């Protein structure tokens, strides 16, 4: 079979397009997010004082940070699925939530007396935080990896890692509306470990599954 023959075979298969990669990612988030939501509803639930919490800067900033992380990771995941992706641009976008977190930490340190810092950071809920963010990230990550197999990433490991970050951010966003520890110090200490674990799992799985 020469190249002309191959072209004939490809043309016979036709180009009428399969679902775009963006749509596949959206579907994966829908399915994975639904499973995470069921886990959330079963095990956690929205904090009862949410109306009061919404009046406090710590809670609002916390939710803003996790949602920014989610949005940045979503954009980067869709971007990195393409072969012509600009990887540096994607990494720059991903630094946005870290920047917000740094500013929030600065605010906390400026506003609250040093004697309260360790209490803010340790919080009351850290073990639940570690466990549930990790647990709720599993299904979204699996669904995202399945969707990304239709992609053509320049770096399969990086694409998988960012999918893990997206799954972790989704889980963290849900967890944030349950948890009553709102200080940026708590967020900085306890949210990253499970999210980074999901990121690492995504990198390893991506390296194996997303080659094309």
């Amino acid at each position, binding site marked *: *079979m*020469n*190249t*002309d*023959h*191959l*072209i*004939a*075979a*490809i*043309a*016979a*298969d*036709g*180009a*009428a*397009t*399969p*679902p*775009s*990669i963006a749509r*596949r990612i959206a579907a994966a988030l829908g399915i994975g997010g639904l499973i995470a939501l069921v886990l959330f509803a079963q095990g956690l639930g929205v904090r009862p004082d949410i109306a009061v919490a919404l009046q406090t800067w710590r809670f609002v900033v916390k939710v803003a940070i996790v949602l920014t992380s989610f949005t940045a990771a979503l954009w980067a995941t869709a971007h990195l*699925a*393409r*072969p*012509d992706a600009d990887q540096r641009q994607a990494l720059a976008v991903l630094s946005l939530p870290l920047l917000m977190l740094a500013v929030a930490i600065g605010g906390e340190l400026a506003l609250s007396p040093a004697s309260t810092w360790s209490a803010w950071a340790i919080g009351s809920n850290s073990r639940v935080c570690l466990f549930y963010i990790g647990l709720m990230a599993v299904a979204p990550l699996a669904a995202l990896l399945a969707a990304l197999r*239709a*992609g*053509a990433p*320049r770096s399969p490991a990086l694409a998988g890692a960012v999918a893990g970050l997206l799954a972790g951010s989704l889980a963290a966003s849900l967890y944030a509306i349950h948890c009553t520890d709102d200080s940026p110090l708590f967020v900085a200490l306890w949210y990253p470990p499970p999210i980074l674990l999901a990121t690492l799992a995504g990198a390893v799985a991506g390296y194996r599954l997303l*080659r*094309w």
Partner: protein
Amino acid sequence: MTDRETHWAGLMRAAIRGDDGAYRRLLKEVAPVLRALASRGLARHNHGSEDVEDVVQETLLALHLKRSTWDERQPFSPWLYAIARNKLIDNLRRRGRQAHVAIDDIGELPGGEAPPAAELNGVDAARLISRLNGRQREIVVAVSVEGETARQVAERLGMTEGAVRVALHRALRALAKAFRTETP
């Protein structure tokens, strides 16, 4: 170059809307450009020309199987060359050459025309096609070498046209995988 970009992007858009003729034209037009790129890329790594057609065929298969990653609002050529670069690197890696291909190396169109390809054609693809199962091979050969339509193949083999299309698509995916897992 801009003319070519507009022309190719137009063909690809038409192809995605279901115009198989436009798709075939596009594939035929990009093949010599991909051949020139592959030839240059392999030569730069002191690699003979015997793999050129492999890289071209792998790139065409990836163009096809990964076409959903092309965003219609983005230019077509950079997307295509990114795939070509990936497939060149894959090929070099499989052969254990040091694969370092700078983005700039392949971002521009080659100045010269494509090298002659006739004598390079399809040595490896012939081996790879033997890895397809019997029905897949029969269908691929019918539509490519014999030039039959999916409907004609369906009638001859007593299958539905849809089943022929599914088998053909699976065969193309199997071919891409065979390239990927091939040991030199």
